[in-house]
């Protein structure tokens, strides 16, 4: 076996930030398993990161002050027009926006990488009588910051109460060699729907909404900003679409944190 470099504080940070090679990651994981004080230190770093989000994430929900918002008459638009960018515009249904730069993905891989795992995870967990979620909605803040950390994205649990669904909770899931997350919602009649998000090999791609039947369920799915989204439920296409649109609209103002960064580099 090759020589192992000693585990440093830098390694703990890189472990937390998912910046290690798989080999080094395994070494650090082993070290953590056998060194409780290092594990404790790592937990405190996590706590720091969570607390930072708790301090500053509320800014994201604030309305944008008018002086920062370009209006139709503002010089912004003139500047943009001068730069030729308005030519790229064009409004699409649901405000979807495959740009000239974003390649559309073939549907087949998405079906395998997004729809099927989402539908399967839906079936497995929505039917579990005792442990449908790993972290309940009572701990929503923790749930969201934890999943955000693990997916390297700034996630939010969309609020679907106006459509009659309340958050049950969520969980972390493995997705081949990447991470996925599931948020579960429930209606008063106990119908459950799930929002599945995962990192995938699609990088910066953006796709339109797609709909598919899988395992007896309806699935609306799309990719944006490095994350794949799937809204799954035992619902008619129209009802599910309303939910998918609500999810899309609530999350679009907040693209994934690592949206434009290479996903496959580690």
């Amino acid at each position, binding site marked *: 076996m090759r020589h192992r470099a000693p585990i440093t504080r830098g390694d703990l940070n890189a472990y937390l*930030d998912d910046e290690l090679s798989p080999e080094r990651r395994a070494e650090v994981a082993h070290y953590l398993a056998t060194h409780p004080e290092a594990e404790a230190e790592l937990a405190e770093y996590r706590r720091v990161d969570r607390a930072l989000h708790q301090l500053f994430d509320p800014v994201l929900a604030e309305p944008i002050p008018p002086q920062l918002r370009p209006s139709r008459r503002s010089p912004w638009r003139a500047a943009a027009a001068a730069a030729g960018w308005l030519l790229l515009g064009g409004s699409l249904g649901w405000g979807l926006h495959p740009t000239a730069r974003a390649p559309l993905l073939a549907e087949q891989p998405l079906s395998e990488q997004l729809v099927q795992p989402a539908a399967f995870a839906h079936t497995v967990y929505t039917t579990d009588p005792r442990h449908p979620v790993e972290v309940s909605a009572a701990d929503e803040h923790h749930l969201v910051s934890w999943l955000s950390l693990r997916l390297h994205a700034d996630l939010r649990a969309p609020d679907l109460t106006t459509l009659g669904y309340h958050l049950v909770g969520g969980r972390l899931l493995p997705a081949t060699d990447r991470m996925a997350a599931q948020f579960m919602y429930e209606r008063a009649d106990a119908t459950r729907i799930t929002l599945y998000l995962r990192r995938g090999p699609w990088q910066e791609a953006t796709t339109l909404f797609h709909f598919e039947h899988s395992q007896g369920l309806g699935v609306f799915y799309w990719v944006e900003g490095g994350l794949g989204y799937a809204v799954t439920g035992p619902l008619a296409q129209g009802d599910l679409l309303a939910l998918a649109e609500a999810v899309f609209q609530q999350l679009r103002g907040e693209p994934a944190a690592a949206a434009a960064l290479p996903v496959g580099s580690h």
Partner: protein
Amino acid sequence: MELPDRVVEQIPRLRRYARALLRGNTPAADDLVQDCLERALGRLHFWRSGSDLRAWLFTIMHNLYVNQLRRNHSGPQFVELLEEESTVAAPGGAESATTLRELQRALDGLPAEQREVLLLVALEGLRYQEAATILGIPVGTVMSRLARARQQLRQQLAQERDGPLRRVK
């Protein structure tokens, strides 16, 4: 989508970063965001289509911030981040208002260069390479500044929770 909308989408994040960078001083942070947006829109033609818009915006903001630090040696004044009404009802697993104040203080106490790295990675979720490009420093420097910054904040939080500092090897 036209580019201005793509820029507008980034405003909440730019505001969050600026707010954290400028010690919770909202007016100063929004001024920085506004400067950043104006500069960005004045230079749209310099933006390479296909490159990461957000990283480009953060780079502009970093440069403005550094200039501002140079101009104003005393640094921005300390402004208490937390309003009283925001100190109640922390959800489960969340930190208390007192702890958050301590964290804010520790963050304010960091050298600006460490604060920037920490916020880009831990708050904004950027990769090390991305932060290095934005700040114009080597990745190794990102890592060492990040380790020092997290260490400092962690000790502050541990101290707040446990009283005297625990020694952790």
